């Protein structure tokens, strides 16, 4: 059940963020990603991160979803911070001296900065997924210029990925009932024992893809190069305001960085 948390995290509530046009949210996530690379002041980044968490909580997300997303990124960041001193041992004071592993305070601070950046970027994309239904997300990408084929592939992936992961569990159960033990034995044996799980997975995926493409074609997919959209997305005044503000802030930061070397 926790597996589906990745793609199926839409929060079925109404919040200000829910009402923002998907295109704006996509652009925000992209701008945020780019912006984070321009920001190197740890305090500014932490403030930004806290601000983003406040936005996330305003969506009404439940604790379970939030913590599983949080831990997903946290695991990655922790590993990063642990591994960092292998490659960066500049600065004083030095905390440990173990041959090639020399963590120093400045280096750890640099590692932390990168970790916070990753969290901030992830927060931007998380906000997008929490407040945008799959269909709207796809419409957003297509209206921003992606081809419709990409859009529908994305729709299908978002729809079927949770199913797919669930199917793998069902396959494990079915094979366990025939005596297949996937948790015992050495690494080689365990890898071999995954074959009776992987092959059916792929077979099912291929059959599903074939069936789905026939179904889509039967419903006229590709029949007319010009498509109409029934439930479409529309920009409102508030969306334009947000867009303009975002562009303004982003440009300001970048400009300050290049002009004055301001300590952002």
């Amino acid at each position, binding site marked *: 059940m926790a597996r589906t948390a990745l793609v199926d995290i839409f929060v079925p509530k109404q919040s200000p963020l829910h009402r923002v046009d998907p295109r704006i949210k996509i652009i925000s996530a992209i701008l945020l990603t780019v912006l984070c690379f321009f920001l190197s002041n740890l305090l500014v980044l932490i403030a930004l991160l806290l601000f983003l968490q406040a936005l996330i909580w305003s969506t009404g997300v439940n604790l379970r979803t939030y913590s599983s997303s949080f831990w997903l990124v946290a695991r990655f960041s922790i590993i990063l911070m642990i591994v960092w001193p292998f490659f960066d041992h500049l600065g004083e004071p030095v905390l440990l001296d173990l041959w090639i592993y020399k963590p120093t305070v400045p280096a750890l601070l640099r590692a932390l900065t990168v970790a916070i950046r990753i969290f901030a970027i992830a927060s931007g994309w998380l906000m997008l997924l929490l407040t945008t239904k799959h269909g709207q997300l796809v419409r957003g990408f297509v209206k921003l210029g992606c081809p419709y084929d990409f859009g529908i592939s994305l*729709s299908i992936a978002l729809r079927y990925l949770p199913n797919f992961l669930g199917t793998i569990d069902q396959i494990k159960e079915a094979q366990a009932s025939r005596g297949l033990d996937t948790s015992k034995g050495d690494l080689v044996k365990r890898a071999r024992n995954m074959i009776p799980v992987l092959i059916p997975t792929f077979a099912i995926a291929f059959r599903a893809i074939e*069936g789905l493409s*026939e*179904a889509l074609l*039967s419903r*006229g997919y590709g029949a007319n190069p010009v498509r*109409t959209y*029934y439930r479409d997305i529309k920009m409102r005044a508030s969306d334009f305001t947000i867009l303009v503000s975002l562009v303004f802030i982003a440009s300001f930061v970048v400009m300050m960085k290049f002009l004055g070397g301001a300590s952002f």
Partner: protein
Amino acid sequence: MLTMPTISINRASFRYRGQEGRALSEVSFDVQRGEFLALLGGDGAGKSTLCKALNGLIPHHIKGEFSGDVLLEGRNTRDLPVMEIVAKVGLALQDPETQLFTDSVEEEVAFAPENLGLPWAEIDYRVKRALESTGMSALAEKSPSALSGGQKQRLAIASAISMMPSILVLDEPLSMLDPRGRAGLLSLLDSLRKERGITVILTSNTAEEIAAHCDRIALLSQGKLISIGRPEEMLTSSKRLTDLSIEPPQLLELSHMLVDEKIIRSEQIFFDEKTGANRILSAIGGRSAQP
């Protein structure tokens, strides 16, 4: 005066690429406008292949060798652009689970007319009518994955009829449903025929339940059309049906047993409850008049 049949299949044959045998072999028959035709056959009889030949997937999208002709209102599917065929023939494939992919029931139903590039107002009209006809108006904003099996099947049909096709083809729509779901689906098809005059073709490997709703039955086996006619003509021998791997109606088998017991005569065999009750009662009634 003959009216042109809505579908005319003439010696249709098809072999899937990479397979040895033919999935369809010289199949020929006509279907009249507004008819309800059941295609019965066992595993591998060619039912699904025939469905796909009716909506143009064969020969336009599925690779293989196709010969013969399928005419829709006189026009050959080979010559018609897919866009036109798909607007005439709605197809609901076997497992609705693998056909639904949008966020809501109404978006799912709108998918087909959207693909045709129809104006918004037209799409809105068709979506609302399709939901009404299938009794799903109250579920318009629900997510397809939250629906029951029977509701998903209805949604698959609603998604097919939003094209306003004149012909609706359903491949094994009953196999995934429980008895209540099956009864509901069959009565839905009856009302669609009455309301819109749609020609309905469905496939199944069992004759139970279908016999009471369809106008004609076609028996298929190994890609060939064995026989086609009214239910009373086709459902006369349960052995013949089981030899073709088709499950006979339970009451047909019962009536054979009653003939063996000399309770009814061989001309009196039946496959539905009402006729059966009448014939048994009159046979017994006659007897009890004997001293």
